């Protein structure tokens, strides 16, 4: 998530100042990768911590292929659910793959 800059604005003093701003606002530890669309909503129901007692599974750090397969099965109705079928229908395969990859990288 590093600043890549905008070539159209890389002229004059803006060009000089831009790296300076970087220095100021990204001092310290780099943050986690930005979640792809929809991914940050999952933890509203799926616990981030295994300390939470819940019938809903934690989904971080899982095999992304299994997450994608589960979402496809929820979407098609092949796998029964209460709310997941309704939610899975809101995401394409590409979006689901991106979410699964991000979740897999979380710990």
């Amino acid at each position, binding site marked *: 998530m590093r*600043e890549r800059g905008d070539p159209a604005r890389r002229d004059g003093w803006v060009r000089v100042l831009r790296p*300076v701003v970087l220095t100021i*606002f990204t001092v310290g530890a780099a943050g986690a990768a*930005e979640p792809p669309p*929809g991914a940050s909503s999952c933890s509203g129901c799926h616990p981030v911590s295994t*300390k939470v007692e819940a*019938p809903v599974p934690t989904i971080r750090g899982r095999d992304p292929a299994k997450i994608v397969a589960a979402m496809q099965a929820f979407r098609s109705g092949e796998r029964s659910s209460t709310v997941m079928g*309704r939610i899975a229908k809101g*995401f394409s395969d590409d979006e689901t793959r991106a979410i699964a990859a991000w979740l897999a990288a979380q710990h």
Partner: protein
Amino acid sequence: MIRTTRRTFLKGGAAAASVALLAAPALAQAKARIIVLGGGFAGAICARELHRADLSFEVTLVEANPTFTACPFSNAVIAGLRDIAMQRFGYDVIRAEGVTIVQDRATAVDPQERRVSLRGGAGFGYDRLVLAPGIDIRWGALPGYDEAAAASMPHAWKAGDQTLLLRRQLDAMADGGTVVISAPANPFRCPPGPYERASLIAFYLKKTKPRSKLIVLDAKDTFSKQRLFQAAWQQLYPELMEWVPLSNGGKVTSVDAKTRTLVTDFATYKADVANVIPPQRAGSIAEVAGVADPTGWCPIDPVTFESRLRPNIHVIGDAAIAGAMPKSAFAANAQAKVCAFAVTALLRGEAPSPPKLVNTCYSLVAPDYGISIAGVYHPTGGQLADVEGAGGVSPADAPPDFRALEAGYAEAWFRTITAETFA
């Protein structure tokens, strides 16, 4: 946005010049400063996510109360099914994580100087301000309903003392009494909330005061999860409950706290216990900051949650006009996380990517009977809209074990979201 960024560049440039001359000490003062006002389901998680996104951010969470009392499941407290202690959460973990917590109330926001003033006298400058003030009651919008009236006809729409007052009144009411709930017109916090409350109060009355009556006077003809609620009421509480919609004269036009009466265009209802859920608006600091529009709520950009009215100020949770997203704790939490990543991107001079957000909202019509509504949302035409084909409510014909499963999921959701926010 570009102009804002350039101004940031200029300030940054000046600071950087000082850094070059004065070396390390000045550098610390140039960290990006973010203030979050309000430590509920939106603000608390937003502050944590901002802190985690970049440990160099100076994140300050301003919250007036030392503990948070959660609204979801407070209807179970009102019905005598749950201890209010289970609704309370502290800020110690968030503080220990590195977020600065200031127990105070914001009294002024200067968008030009980018400065927040607190009642206690302190002031803080910010690069980005996040408002998560929840709701305030629109006192006086319903004639006769002011703060004094709420002491005898509780709204219980902010959890805490009001919740316990309504609980005590129900507890003290004799069998054969009449409970009246007044539900407001849209928009308001927690669209299915009045109907979950009616359900759980009916459950309590059926069990302990079966000769009593519950009347819901509604300023609307339709409401969230309506068919599911009405089917459940017919099944569980047929004699006890009556719902009076707008078109049958359900809109309460005035109340009298002294006699505990509610007046509509067609009738006057004398209640033994009256729960007036009044018209609402964004928490008052929104108006002070100039981010509330004439409706009392806050228009926002659906990608960044930045105010449409004031730059560098973001609004999340119940206070925001979030298009198709309801004013729910789940939505507030989802918005808070999206906003935190957008603010992070903006402070780095990057363009935030368009988000998708989810809402899932459970209601209990009885302790073992849960129903839900879900939605998926994306920015379209400058507003958050439903993703077509997704979302919807629980099936109408589900068997009892499905309802029991959703009741269990409802409780698990509460444990999960409060753990993510406060633990």
